[in-house]
């Protein structure tokens, strides 16, 4: 993880350096005289050579100081701390909804292949993958806030505020999960050992949940992990639509405001979180996949 973080910080630093626009100018506004912009640049240490500034950033970061936002003058870590909970909540609820609805529907579709349930769930899955989340979000606001007045349109003060954003985010993930669960289940169901299990008289529920599902779940868990870490990186469009401030808006604001410290810190944070989620998924494998488990055990034995 350390080389990833270091490399990423270097790339981000270079990108912010190479893209046009001057942070001092962005702060002072369009009509500020050049002299004053120069003065502020000097104050901010922007006139030092690239590597000096990069080294200063790394050195300070190693000492736990990730800099202060150019735009707001607030420490970047504090800002991330303020914004991350909203992103975490949306991501968590979205994944929860996707898993709770997606996997069972996928299983039913697979078990009852080509039935009416299967076809209708496949069609709606296709529909949900194709609907852009922001559009779904706007439609939901129109229905639940403007027409029915039962959910708040914008903000993130209470749990009610999270219902619509989470569903809007979940829709596409859920559709992916349905299709994935269905296809892997279908593959597993055709395996010899399932026929054996059925032949030896195991109950259908046991065949589905123990023999098939456990084996079919592996790629699904990977997919859930990936989508969770993606969502944790912030969901700009959903945040914009629902007036929620998460990591996504923070990053975009930082890019447009030429706020390099804020951008680097928030992207690094997202990378870190993504890394940990992937690690968590890998660890989860040891519980559900006996092959992986035995590998670890063997290595341990050597």
């Amino acid at each position, binding site marked *: 993880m350390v080389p990833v973080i270091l490399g990423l910080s270097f790339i981000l630093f270079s990108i912010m350096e190479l*893209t*046009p*626009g*001057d942070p001092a*100018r*962005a*702060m*002072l*506004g*369009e*009509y*500020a*005289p*050049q*002299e*004053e*912009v120069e*003065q*502020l640049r000097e104050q901010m240490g922007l006139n030092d050579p690239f590597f000096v500034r990069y080294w200063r950033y790394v050195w300070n970061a190693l000492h736990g100081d990730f800099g202060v936002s150019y*735009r*707001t*003058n*607030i420490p970047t870590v504090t*800002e991330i701390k*303020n*914004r991350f909970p*909203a992103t975490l909540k949306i991501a968590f609820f979205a994944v929860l909804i996707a898993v709770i609805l997606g996997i069972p529907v996928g299983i039913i579709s697979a078990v009852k292949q080509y039935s009416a349930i299967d076809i209708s769930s496949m069609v709606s899955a296709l529909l949900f993958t194709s609907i852009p989340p*922001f559009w779904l*979000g*706007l439609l939901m*606001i*129109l229905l639940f*806030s*403007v027409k029915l*007045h*039962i*959910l*708040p*349109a*914008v*903000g*993130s*003060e209470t749990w*009610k505020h999270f219902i619509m954003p989470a569903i809007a985010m979940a829709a596409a993930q859920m559709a992916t999960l349905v299709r994935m669960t269905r296809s892997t289940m279908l593959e597993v169901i055709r395996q010899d050992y399932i026929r054996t299990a059925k032949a030896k008289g195991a109950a259908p529920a046991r065949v589905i949940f123990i023999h098939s599902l456990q084996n079919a779940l592996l790629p699904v868990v990977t997919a859930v992990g990936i989508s969770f870490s993606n969502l944790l990186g912030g969901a700009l469009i959903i*945040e*914009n*639509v*629902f*007036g*929620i*401030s998460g990591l996504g*808006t*923070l990053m975009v*604001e930082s890019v*447009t405001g*030429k706020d390099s410290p804020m951008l680097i810190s928030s992207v690094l944070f997202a990378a870190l979180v993504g890394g940990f989620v992937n690690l968590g998924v890998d660890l989860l494998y040891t519980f559900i996949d006996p092959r992986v488990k035995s590998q670890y055990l063997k290595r341990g034995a050597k």
Partner: protein
Amino acid sequence: MRKFVFALMLVLLFVPAALAGKADNSVSVRNVSDQKTFDPYRTTDLVDWQTHYQIFDSLFWETPDGKFVPALCTDYSISPDGLEMLFTIREGVKFHNGDVMTADDVVFSLNTAIASPFTSKFTSVMKEASKVDGKTVKLTLKHPYKPIIGCLVSSSTSIVPKKVYEADPDGFGQKPVGTGPYMLKDVRSGESITMEAFPDYFKGEAKVKTHIVRVIKDNMSALMAMQSGTLDRMVPNQDYSDRQAIIDDPNLVYYEAPQACSFLVAFNTARGPFADKRLREAVARAIDKEELILGAVNGMAEPTDEGIVPLCPQAPKGFKGLEYDIEKAKALVAEAGYPKGLTVTMRVIGATNYTKPAEILQAQLRNIGIDMKIEAMDRARWFDLVLNKAQFDVTFYAHAISVADADFCTYPFLHSSQLNGKGTNYMGVNIPELDECLDKARSSLDDAERNKEYLRVCEIIRDESLYIPCYTGKRTVAAVKDLKGVFADPMQRYYIYNYSW
């Protein structure tokens, strides 16, 4: 039965969310971006200013009809040479922390504003503030300046408590203390700001007890938040696309005011093809402003001929620009040495209020043999290339004013002292007669004399075709019907203190 109880529970659970601001005497407004700071001296952002107007007071206030009246001062005088101003400080004004405002606070605030690079738009003319006695403050100017009161209305010259600001200048931006009608209560970073009425406000406690500012980036969801009662006031889309939806909604009211800027075609008059005056004049004669307005902003603008924002009192009335004349324009292009036409590039900021008119202009200029390529770019890049480095042939831009005075839309753009990055004379204008007019108009305190000078300025802009003023749009505000005291302001300034249910 069970189903019914469940449904009832659901309804009961959700009902409070639908209550509008009227029920709890609060006003929620929309901002398009987040608050950067609450320090009035460290921002140039309109979005920040709007909140500062609620938390702080300045020496002067703007009334709904656009007049400037004393706020934190009770009286003022200007010396005959126009270089010194004396303010009598209002007595018994309290800050949010309970301290009484003193002359020292006013002196400190003004001097901090003068020293800050962020406030130069309003303070560059000020030299220093000093204390005369316990209730009198003197402000010295670098030269006489008629629009000075307008500068002292700005939130950039807000009055802060010296003791609090000095104790922690960096922390002030997060824990502001002012004399204004509202105190900052809670900030949800990037999402909302909650303010509460200050009971000891010197004009009496505000009628609206809670003021909430919400950051909603998406125009559609902001409008729906208005319709669902979460929001009470917003600034609608700049391209007027949601205008009809708001007008048609019986619960909403659409307010309009003239915009404090002129949209214009600006040339690089120092380098490139448009250094030739004939070519500039050709463009001026080839633009059909009515068609441009219709195509670019759905007809929601007024054509302008004068080179000064029409809102300024100095803008000459009934001023006529060059006449639309395609044949003459074609002849001018040929005369300038391009009988077969030429290709130029227009660099614009990649936002619809610049790209849409650019496309119409492209079509109009094709009529006279000018093939104009449009290069739309990021705002920051445009400012770097066009405004700072003058690397452009022609652009479409808006000259905006922060105080309704012609000085704001002429001097920084046209005076030769503002060339080469010292100011914003990106067009490379260097005409001694123009400099003279601008200097005279700037330092004169006589309205008639200033009007005369600015008329001459407009004539020079037209005769030299320095830039082509095209139109001025409308500032708009949408608010729920029951909210009183709302109006659209050209500078987008508003005081929630004027609002009531």
